């Protein structure tokens, strides 16, 4: 969607056009859900925060400044919702719930092992993410998952670009260490069971 198309949708939604609001939601809901799911580790929580973020944004479209990006505003509100949520309770990681959120393969049984291995990677990844500091987790998600540039992440997280890169570097190193430890444990378990 071009910026002009997005602005047109925003104007329509602001005037009460249901269809315009629907198109605006569909354009951003996937990325927003992915962000909140990775941050919280819980699909049910991510769903609720996605809905609340959109409701708040669409209720206040008259305040939207067209000089800025709509997604930035939407993600800023989502971030505040997540911060409030995380202050209430620690995010829990549910492997069963997360597995249902991953894109499922329709391949036949021959690829089950691949699916299981992939699911294991995703489980390990999510578990590692949740062990990172929130700033490191957020920087990794926005940069690697949503392809946000460093300057935009810095703006969103309200910190200098150098600090964002620092969080990225440390987050990657720590995640790598966690994954390495997990693999080591899995190998030892496998050897023990063999």
């Amino acid at each position, binding site marked *: 969607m071009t910026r002009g198309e997005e602005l047109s949708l925003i104007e329509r939604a602001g005037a*009460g056009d*249901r269809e315009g609001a629907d198109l605006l939601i569909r354009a951003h809901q996937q990325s927003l859900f992915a962000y909140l799911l990775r941050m919280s580790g819980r699909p049910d929580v991510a769903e609720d925060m996605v809905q*609340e973020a959109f409701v708040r944004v669409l209720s206040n479209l008259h305040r939207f400044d067209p000089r800025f990006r709509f997604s930035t505003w939407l993600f800023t509100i989502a971030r505040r919702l997540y911060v409030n949520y995380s202050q209430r309770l620690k995010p829990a990681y549910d492997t069963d719930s997360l597995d249902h959120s991953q894109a499922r393969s329709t391949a036949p049984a021959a690829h089950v092992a691949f699916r299981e291995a992939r699911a294991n990677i995703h489980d390990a*990844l999510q578990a590692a993410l949740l062990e990172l500091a929130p700033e490191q987790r957020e920087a990794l998600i926005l940069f690697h998952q949503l392809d946000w540039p460093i300057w935009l992440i810095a703006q969103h997280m309200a910190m200098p670009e150098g600090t964002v890169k620092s969080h*990225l570097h440390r987050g990657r190193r720590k995640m*790598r260490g966690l994954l390495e430890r997990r693999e080591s444990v899995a190998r030892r378990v496998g050897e023990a069971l063999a």
Partner: protein
Amino acid sequence: MSDRIRIARDDHRAIPSEVIDSFFDREMDDASRDKFFAMLRADVKACEDVVRTQRAVSALREPVESPELSGAILARLDERRHFLPARMRAMVTGGRAAAAAGLLLGLLAISLIQRYAPDGVSLVEAPSPVSKLASRSASDAAAGVQHLAGAMESVAARVADQSGKPRWGAVRQVSPLVAAPTTVRVAIRERSDIVIYGGAGDDPRFLTLPSASAPRRTARGGGVFAVNGVDRMGEDLLMVPVLTRGLGGHIDLIKTPDGP
């Protein structure tokens, strides 16, 4: 960045972490990337770290299946604000535009009328300047004086019509009494002023008359008596002159210790 890679390669040291970060931060150009991969082939540890990190980054980049939430979101929004169908929205927009245009035209019409016919439209009562208030008070006072003057003239006419009636000076002032006295009382306010209350019933009146420089006396009933002194209005009255005929009605002479 290419200098760092060259130095690291030349020194046969482990690849610095900054170089690996630069790779994952997507800051390398094609040439630097090729050199980096060549260095990795010589550094097993660094290669394992890069592979492990790349695997995690690739997993992170895989799309996450999102549930369809637009229906639920719009339902929540409907609770706060109702969406209008396109047709109704057009009607609402048109109505608002018409109301705004009507208001503007009305204001324009008023401003034009105000400009070319200032007296034609008056939305609020024009404030009265203080000068008008003063002139109004003056006119009210003048009306009061006229009323009083009329009353004076009627009394003066009555006094003047009585032929042979002794008369001291001219009527200078007539003031209505608060309550009608049944007797005549004379209040002396000052040496040169004599106030005589007179009348009975519904026609109270009193006169102020200039006092005589020298007392005069007459032996006849109803005659004029000299004023013997000045006293305050009310009970302590001295000898007073009384005009009997001019006032009419029953007049009592108020006796005083020094009375006649």
